[in-house]
Every structure is written in C-alpha cells, then in structure tokens.
C-alpha cells in the first residue's frame, strides 16, 4: 500500500468516444490539478459517465489520449492505472462481509493478513464503520453501503479517485450529510478526485472546479462561483441554480432588451434579433405594479420558509421572484417586478452564447 499522498494530475487530450454511429463525447479537453476535486456535471446522456469510464480504463476512447500524472494511460488496463472507483450502485459483493469487501483490493495484491486487517480497520474507522465489519451488504442501510464502497476506494490510497454519482441512491437528508462527509474526507486525504453527477447542488458544494457537459461537449470549466455568477452560455445558466434562472425571449436592440411590448435596460450592447434574457429569482424583487421595471399578474405564491417564491405572469412568459417570507400577494393580483440591469444576463438564442 502506497503511503503518503501520491496525488496525480489528470489530463484528457482531445478525447472522443462514439458508440457505433452515436457520438457520445466530442473533442474533450480537460486538465485536473493534483489534489483537486473536479466535478463533471451534466444531464443523462451528456457524456460525463463516459468520460469517467474512459479515465478509469473501462472504455477505450475512439480518439485522443488520457494521462494520469505523467503517464499516458490510454491503452493501460484499469488495474495498472492506480485509481479507485466508487460506482453508483456501490457494487458491493453480496457474498462477502463488509471487511472482506473493503479488503478486496488488498487481497488482490496478496498483502499479508496482518497488514491487510490493519488497513481494513483504518479505512473502516475513517468512514465510521468499524462496528459493522462482520455484516453482509444486504443487512446494511443505503448510507452504510455507500460508506463501505468509499472505504474500499480509499484503502489503497490511489493517485486518483473516481466517483460515479455515488449519492444519487440516497434519500435527500442523508445526501446532505454524506456531501459534507465526502468534502471533509477529500480535504483530509487530498487525493485528486473526479466526481460525476447530475445534481448541481453537489457540484456547487463539493467542487474546486466544475466541468459542465451537454451532449458530449464541454460547456464551461470554472469554479462554482464563477459558473454561478458568470455562466458562459444559456445551458449552464439554466442548469445551475435552484430555482432555475428565469428565461425571457425577445430581442436586443442597442442597450435595451425588447419583449412583450416593454423595453428593459441592459448593461451589454448589441443587435440581436433573437435573444434571451436571464435573471435569477434572487436578483429581482417584487414591488408596486407602477414602480417595477415591468408589471404582471401573480400566477401563484409558494412559501418556502425563509422566503416566498412568487411566480408572475408577464405576457407569454413567467418570472419567478424570491420575495420576503411575509409577502402577502394573492393569485391574480397585479404586481411589479424590478429587473436590475447589472443582474440581467443576455444570451444569443441560436448559439446560446452569452453576450458580454
């Protein structure tokens, strides 16, 4: 067992993957720094799992090279890549105890029993499973099984961790708890981690950097705050943020966005016949019908607890606004919405690119 931190960098160099005639991954370029927590974020079919599997060696790319550290591992079998992987289904061997599951990678390497037992105990302690070492996977809860999978991954101290949607099979409350655990563990161990998910909250909370993928193409690679505040295109803007960014269709003429018979002042200038304006619910506010940038009718209000979400009908569009928790408007009331120009994102509708 290698001790210490042999964290390695990861590089995808023009990687492409097609299954038959279907192109799943296009010209994928990505460099991950040693010790970084990188999240591959995207919907299903976006190619994120394929990229992970190519990195693990379970798939071979149709074109391009993959590097771990300084080695070109494109044609190397998984077992020689010094990686660990946590599967979405955990892939725990049902006929082995927890201890045997965790110790399997070491058993494969034919470590002497004493060393193996010590390592198993150490890994189990890190995920708080030392009391369950003699149980079988079918006797454990979802969260416990997930921790067994984690322990099995960390026991070898590999240079890269790969995780394929490890939290998606857990219920919401447990997911939040495990997110914190994962982040803490990665911070402690410092191993380079590539994490695949479709949940943008996981991406925002866990990542050092996020790579957003859609239909096999990398949309944006940046830190979570950058992705949130400075989305590169419409897809990223709508994918990140909960509730999602409001999207209004219209046209950009000079410094104003025109739609629904209204003109909204914008910060960027341009001349685009088909444009999309985006504003996040927390960046706009409700006010008197005459005092707002635009005015519309309340479609519905939802009290979340610490705030109220107000959905406003404006022409053919709907805008969701985060309002004060004591907002007392009712369905059908007229209401005004303030759209500050500095929080308005303008996108070209055809290309999706952000206009800066």
């Amino acid at each position, binding site marked *: *067992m*290698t001790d210490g931190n*042999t964290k390695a960098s990861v590089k995808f160099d023009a990687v492409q993957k097609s299954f038959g005639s279907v192109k799943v991954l296009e010209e994928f370029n990505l460099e991950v720094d040693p010790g970084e927590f990188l999240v591959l974020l995207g919907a299903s079919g976006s190619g994120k799992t394929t990229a992970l599997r190519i990195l693990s*060696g*379970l*798939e*071979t790319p149709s074109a391009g090279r993959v590097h771990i550290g300084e*080695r*070109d*591992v494109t*044609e*190397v*079998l*998984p*077992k*020689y*890549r*010094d990686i660990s992987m946590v599967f979405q289904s955990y892939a725990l061997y049902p006929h082995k105890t927890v201890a045997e599951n965790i110790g399997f990678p070491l058993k494969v*390497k*034919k*470590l002497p029993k004493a060393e193996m037992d010590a390592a198993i105990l150490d890994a189990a302690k890190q995920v708080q499973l030392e009391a369950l070492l003699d149980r079988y996977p079918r006797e454990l809860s979802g969260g416990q099984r997930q921790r067994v999978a984690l322990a099995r991954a960390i026991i*070898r101290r590999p240079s890269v961790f790969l995780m394929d949607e490890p939290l998606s099979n857990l219920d919401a409350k447990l997911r939040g708890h495990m997110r914190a655990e994962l982040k803490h563990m990665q911070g402690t161990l410092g191993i380079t981690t590539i994490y695949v998910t479709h949940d943008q909250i996981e991406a925002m909370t866990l990542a050092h950097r996020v790579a957003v993928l859609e239909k096999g193409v990398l949309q944006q690679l940046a830190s979570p705050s950058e992705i949130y505040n400075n989305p590169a295109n419409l897809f990223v803007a709508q994918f990140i943020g909960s509730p999602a960014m409001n999207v209004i269709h219209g046209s950009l003429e000079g410094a104003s966005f025109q739609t629904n018979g209204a003109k909204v002042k914008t910060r960027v200038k341009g001349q685009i016949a088909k444009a999309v304006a985006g504003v996040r619910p927390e960046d706009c506010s409700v006010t008197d019908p005459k005092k707002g940038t635009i005015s519309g009718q309340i479609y519905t209000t939802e009290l979340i607890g610490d705030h109220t979400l107000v959905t406003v009908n404006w022409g053919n569009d709907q805008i969701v606004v985060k309002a004060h928790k004591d907002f007392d408007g009712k369905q059908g009331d007229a209401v005004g919405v303030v759209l500050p120009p500095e929080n308005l994102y303008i996108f070209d509708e055809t290309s999706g690119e952000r206009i800066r």
Partner: protein
Amino acid sequence: MSGAHTKFDLQNRGLLEKMFEPPAVGKMAPVAKIVVYSFLAIWSLFVLFPIYWVIITSFKDAAAVNQGPSYFPFVDFQPTLDAWRINFTADPYCDMAAIARQLYLLAHNSVAFVLSPVVTIPPMEPQICKIYLAFTNSVVISIISTIFCVAVGSMAAYALARIQYRPKFGNIMIFVLLIVGVILATTYAGVPWWMSSAVALALFFFLARALGRHFKMSLGNGDILFWMISQRILPPIVVVVPLYVMFQAVRLLDTHLALILLYAVANLPIVVWLMHDFFANLPIELEESAQLDGATRFGIFWEIVMPLTRPGLAATTLLILVLNWNEYLFAVFLSTVKVQTMPIMVAAKNTGEKGVLWWEMCAVTVVMIIPVIIMAVLLTRFISKGVLLGAVKG
C-alpha cells in the same frame, strides 16, 4: 507488489504480458482467444456431426449404408432420394392432398365423436398414408395440447400469484382416502367405476361441509405451487399402465383427445412454474386500478396481465410445443392405429426382420428435426433476453 504498478512501463510490455493479458477491458488476451475459440469449435463439431450424419444418411441407399461408412455426398457415395420416395410417396394414398384429407378426416371424426350420444354419424374410413397421418397427428396434437396446457397452466399460475388459497389439510386427507376407496372398490370389488366415483364425490362434498370447520391446519399457496411443480418428478412409467386401463374403460384409447389431455398434464408443471414467476413480478397496481374500475378477475387476466407477459408466454409456448412434438412414451402406449405420431413412425423403422431401415428412419427424423430447429432459433432469441432466468432463480 503494491509499487509494481507505478513502475509499470507501457512501452516495454513483455511478450508474455502481451500474450496473456487482455489488451483492454472488454477484449480477450490473444492466448485466451485461441483457447476459447478452439474449444467452441470442437464442441460445435461435436454438436453438428450427429445431425450431419443423420441428414446424409437419409440420402443414402441400403448398399451405401451397409457397406461401411461413407462421409461425403458425391465423394464417397451417390446421394439418392430413395428413402424420401419410399416414405412420402410409396403408399398409394400419399400425395399432395393427403394432409388436407387427413385434416378433414380428423374434423369429421371429431364431430362424429362429440355428437355420438345424440346422433350417430358413421366415421369416415381413413385412406391411410401412414406418414402424412403421423405428421398431421403430430402437428394437431402438439398444437392443441400446447394451447390447452398453456391456457390452463397460466390461469392456475395467475390464481396462485394473486389469490390466497387455504385448503384445509383435513379435507385433502379425506379426498385422498376417498380416491383410495374408489380404486379398491373398482378393482377388488368389481364396482363399476362411474358408480364408485359418483359416490366418492358426493361423500367428499358432504364430509367436507360437515367436518371442515373442525380442521385447523391448512396449506397455503406455496404448498399448492410446490405440489403442482413437483408433479414433474413423477416418472411417466408409473402412470402409463393405469392410464391405459382408464382410457380403455371410457373407450378413449387411440384417440386424439387422450393424447392431448395427457401431454397437457405432463407439461403443466413447467408452465405453472414459469408463468407463476412472471405473474408474481408484475406490479400489482395495474390490476388494482382495474379492479377499482370494476373489471372482473378474468377480464383483468385476459386484457391486462396476459399482454404484459407476452415474451414469457411466447417462450413458454415454444418450449412446451417442442416437448409435445418430441413426446414418445405416452403415444406408444396409448395409440394403436389412428393416432400414431411422428416419433412412433421413427421407431417403426426398426423392423424385426429387415433390421433397422436406417436411411428411411433418417428421412423421417430429418422431417421431425426441421420444425424443431426453427423453434429452437426462436426460443434462444427469447432466452437471450433473460426471459426465463427469473424462473430458474426462483
């Protein structure tokens, strides 16, 4: 050992590694490829050779067979259509319309049989072309028996999957004792079978009503299922002789009905076993929602459940069809002239005086094998979709 992978040098993979290690996940190492494909090839030869031998023998004549082995047509021996001619055209009534005539004959005699208590229709005398008769019999009996078996078995399997049964153990014991009584009365005391059966049935209903409430122990669905499936353990030899006597007593010997019923019973356990698994795995919400809408049990079964199990149903039907097509023991015991099936024709080529007429037998065997191969192709397509696996696991 643990540090080996960091020292792993890709450029200089040794020859041994290149030969024994797979080049990538999802592919085989070169050595492994050679080994695997050669074993598969050897086994393929082993499988195909007897079939090949049967096919070419059907094209040989007596001399070619008896003089020692010949392997290749046109090289070792001259292929002839003798065997085919003798089998299929030699008898005077064997012509293209023979099968149509047999079917009509069958229909005519079945109707006559059904209506016999009411009106007497003289049965049509068969103009027998033995081989076409056997072929028609095989086809008709197999198909009808399969449909009947799958229908009855599916219904029972569905009921066992959805409805709770609680037969009282005491009632079952009474029933068994009554059966024993009927048999003893009929064999040792000479009571006519219909009289003792009627008395036994009446006694059963009366006793079950009267004593039923006192019995506490009852069996459940699992037991009934086990009982039905375990019927397969029964060696047919145990029942053929009594069945012969029984059928003779009701004058159903050498009839299609007898064989259809018997084939159905013989394969019922398989149908129940396979279909029960399919039904149990269907989500119950579909049926519950139909119930709320007021559908009858049979309506749910026919409209909702059966269509959902189509692949499993098809696979089961094909399997039973093949088993019925190949069935020999019951046929040979219970048929004499009219209901002979193809396997009996094959066996008949083993004549006493002339020895085995191999070439003719092979021709008949080939005709038996071809539909079966087609069904095998269809069946494996279903199995490869994992359709039948669930049942085996259970």
